[in-house]
């Protein structure tokens, strides 16, 4: 090859460059058999389902395939009333991308009656300053449901 002329590299600047990079992803995520049952019951029947461990008898919600305590395979579904008790909460006052709604709003952990674990969800239908731990809560479902955990619009204090 004779095309190559040895140009000087001295005229090429050396000062540091900071680049802005955008990473894109667009994953299709299936929720699996267990998540599928949980979400379709909410979507189709407005019913919250827990799953019971055959070993330690704990009832988990959201359900999972294996008990995280004793690693047993779980398959026994338990229908829950949806009502529960607020165990803890936090109020979000700033906006970040991908938040489910505009702040200010509250997140809480609601321990549903009959379940051994709490479920994290939005708290609504109440003045944010009047939320108290140990409040009795119940779910408010959306009219249009699509098989998402956000088919529950929020949990509100029981009347």
């Amino acid at each position, binding site marked *: 090859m004779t095309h*190559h*002329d040895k140009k000087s590299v001295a005229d090429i600047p050396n000062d540091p460059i*900071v680049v802005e990079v*955008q990473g*894109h*992803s*667009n994953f*299709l995520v299936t*929720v699996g058999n267990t998540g599928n049952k949980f979400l379709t019951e909410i979507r189709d029947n407005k019913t919250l389902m827990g799953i019971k461990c055959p070993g330690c008898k704990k009832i988990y919600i959201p359900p999972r395939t294996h008990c995280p305590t004793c690693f047993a395979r779980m398959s026994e579904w338990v229908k829950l009333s949806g009502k529960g008790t607020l165990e803890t909460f936090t109020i979000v006052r700033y906006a970040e991308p991908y938040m489910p709604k505009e702040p200010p709003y509250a997140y809480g952990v609601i321990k549903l009656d009959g379940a051994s674990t709490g479920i994290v969800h939005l708290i609504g239908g109440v003045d944010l300053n009047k939320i108290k731990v140990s409040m009795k809560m119940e779910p408010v479902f959306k009219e249009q449901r699509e098989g998402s955990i956000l088919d529950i619009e929020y949990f509100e204090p029981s009347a």
Partner: protein
Amino acid sequence: MVLKKEEPQDPSVAFRYPRVITYKHSLGYQSKFAHALKMGRIIATKCPVDGRCTIPPRIVCPMHHIRQTEWVDQGQRGKLLSAFKINFPMFDSRTGDLKSWDTPIVSIELEGGARMDGWCAETDTSKLKTGMVLEAVWRPEEERKGRVDDILYWKPV
């Protein structure tokens, strides 16, 4: 633990998770390489021990563990070392979507001795022969961003 094979259910619940993550990073020592790309030039670092040129440039020679301070112009042409074509849709990291890739990916030994990869203008892989000479085709200067895809593709000479 051996998991029992289960009867597959209809996975009717699935979600799309479109995400865009923006971050900034300094090119550091490689900045000169990026400046060169903006100027339509390809340069490489050269090892002071054996003269091996590396792209992307490295501050330390990976073979001799010695600092590389010399930059060498690599010209605009190179010899084809290998080529392959992806015949099924693959993810495009710039969009996150599946994309069909028509252009072969080529590995080239440049006139200056460094090796680099790129896209090839010749989509018929039967016409690609190792040793053939390819030439860089650049984006218009005003569109260059100091990235390796400022070289649009390599075309046979």
